[in-house]
């Protein structure tokens, strides 16, 4: 359950930020463009549509069929990189608070042994760092969207399906998108050069290569589930 309310000294004087970042129920984490090289070390990085606008976002896939973050095991993130979107998940930017922030009171980012948000009625150093970090993330996510818009204009985006097999049965994970390898291989010279100069060509390679991490998701799923999958494959129609 999400209960996002504007942050205030009075209401949240006792709130403490957990030393163990939450996000146990996250299916995916939104990524900024600068996070891509770091995120591909752990996660399949692909595209998903925003439910309100239909526009593509860059995401790190954290789950398979269940709404369960497979990288958070017994309360701890087990990944080399923690996406900013997950680290900052307890907070939102908000125009309804003097502090410019709102908090998800019902989220799993709080703990009694955590660092207080306020010390003697003033924002703690940890809290003071949140707003600039969120603003940087928003700008970074916008940069990722600009890159994706360039890919879309070149007709490079394709729907992908993660097919999960168990014996004779199969389950499919839909609603994810990636780049078309054939389209990338047959780009016009001028487009190749342009994408290269923008850094988008290497980003495209990282995204494509990261799909191999779907196997890592399967392993994590099997390690903690009583109904393991025999295989996990990415299908590009």
């Amino acid at each position: 359950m999400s209960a996002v309310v504007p942050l205030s000294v009075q209401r949240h004087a006792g709130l403490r930020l957990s030393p163990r970042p939450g996000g146990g129920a996250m299916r995916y984490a939104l990524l900024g463009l600068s996070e891509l090289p770091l995120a591909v070390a752990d996660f399949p990085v692909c595209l998903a549509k925003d439910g309100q606008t239909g526009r593509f976002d860059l995401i790190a896939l954290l789950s398979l069929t269940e709404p369960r973050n497979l990288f958070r095991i017994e309360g701890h993130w087990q990944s080399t990189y923690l996406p900013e979107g997950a680290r900052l998940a307890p907070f939102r930017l908000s125009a309804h608070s003097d502090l410019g922030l709102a908090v998800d009171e019902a989220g799993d980012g709080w703990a009694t042994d955590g660092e207080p948000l306020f010390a003697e009625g003033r924002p703690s150093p940890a809290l003071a760092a949140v707003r600039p970090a969120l603003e940087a993330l928003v700008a970074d996510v916008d940069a990722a969207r600009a890159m994706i818009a360039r890919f879309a204009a070149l007709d490079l985006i394709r729907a992908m399906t993660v097919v999960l097999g168990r014996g004779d049965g199969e389950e499919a994970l839909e609603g994810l998108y990636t780049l078309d390898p054939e389209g990338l291989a047959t780009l016009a010279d001028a487009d190749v050069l342009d994408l290269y100069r923008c850094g988008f060509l290497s980003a495209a390679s990282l995204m494509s290569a990261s799909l191999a991490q779907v196997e890592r998701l399967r392993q994590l799923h099997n390690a903690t589930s009583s109904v393991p999958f025999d295989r996990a494959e990415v299908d590009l129609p």
Partner: protein
Amino acid sequence: MTEGVEDGRGFRVVVVGGGSAGWIAACRIAAAHEDASVTLIESPTTPPIGVGEGTWPTMRNTLARIGIAEADFIREADAALKQGARFVGWTHGGEDAYYHPLNPPIGAGEVDLASRWVDGGGGNTSFADCVDFQASLCDAGLAPKKITSPQFSGIANYAYHLDAGKFAELLRRHGTERLGVRHIRQDVTTVDQAENGDITALHLADGSLQAGDLFVDCSGFKGLLIGGVYGVGLRDRSDVLFADRALALQVPYDTPDAPITCHTVSTAQSAGWIWDIGLWSRRGIGHVYSSAHISDDEAERQLRAYVGPQAEGLTARRLTINAGQRRIFWQNNCVAVGLSAGFLEPLEASSLMLVEVAVDAIADRLPRTPAAMRVAARQFNAAFDHHWERVVEFLKLHYVLTRRTDSDFWRDNVAATSVPDGLADRLELWRAHPPGPADFPHAPEVFGWPSYQYVLHGMDFETRYAEFAPPARHAKADRLIARAAGMKAEAARALPRHRELLRAIRDHGLQAV
């Protein structure tokens, strides 16, 4: 045709007329044939008719082929989505109503559900509600797709309601700026013909000459080339379809946030019917009627009574309907498309659909040699004789099944002399056996068996299916009917309200995938 085109190079297509038919033809041909030159000649003195506001799902293909993004179309043509039509008062003249949705019955072709429904398989639900989920979306004002659906793709089948004037303008910009269509605003004064009767060139009012190899006549009712040059007359169909006049109003919404109906509403009157079409910024509402059965004044009074106080201060536009089609559509190197090919009352939005089917046939195999064109013309004429006949029959179906006896209009409509033989024959067959693919062997067939089933069962057509259907098939039919019910609940959870979706599309666009 000149010698230079014998090898098919530099083929010159000249479209006469700048309404939606002319621009659809010019854009489709130019998009499909980069090697051909396409010129559209528009009269600066004759404005387009511009009342065609309902389309078929085929328009999605047409837009995709022309290369217009769906979101641009929705923004610029003031368009909304259409999931079918609701017919009110056609059977009994009261509140009775039924849907003709655009989705086919679930499991179409696998097992016939009509027999099961007739036999009580759907409980008390209407036929459309029993065999598919789309009618429930229409009732709830929900859209057939989500903002995350790719362009031209939906959870349910859909077409559009559009502003025909704005649509023609969008096509003009796209055609001239992206597809290389030449646009000339001049009246055609005279026509040069070769000895064999082919048109070689058009003389324009400014003294210039426009030569061509294929001439597409989209000049509207007058049929400048097909009628004016070749003297091909209309085959009058007013003996079957009585409506000969229409009154049209453009009605604003009560509030800017008023729901937009996601289907056409067609409400029967004493001597015709009223269309009600929701666009993004207004409604188009009009009365189609038979002047032999009602006066213009009374027709306008009924229209204003339907609209209510919103009609005050609005002036109704008057239109004449000459129900019928050309006896020949493609003569020599001239093919008539749009109103110049004919017109029928817009009961099932067949007008733009016939334009699309015609332009598909022309553009898919643009015949480059005189010999090929002769054969193409023969095939085209045979196909469109068939299509027009079947459209006439399908429109008549809506009238011939009525139980209304409250006016001469409805009584005359069921008179055997007004029913085409083909339709009368098939109705006999369909009393015993549901309409199926075998009844519609033509490819493409404009109205298929699902459309007939929706209208027949929407209007309580009496059948004997229950006697003849093997009960062994019931189990499978029941599974499909249960699945349709499940899809209804799922769609109601997942789909947004129609106006909300249109707003999101206008704000954010739609992705290509």
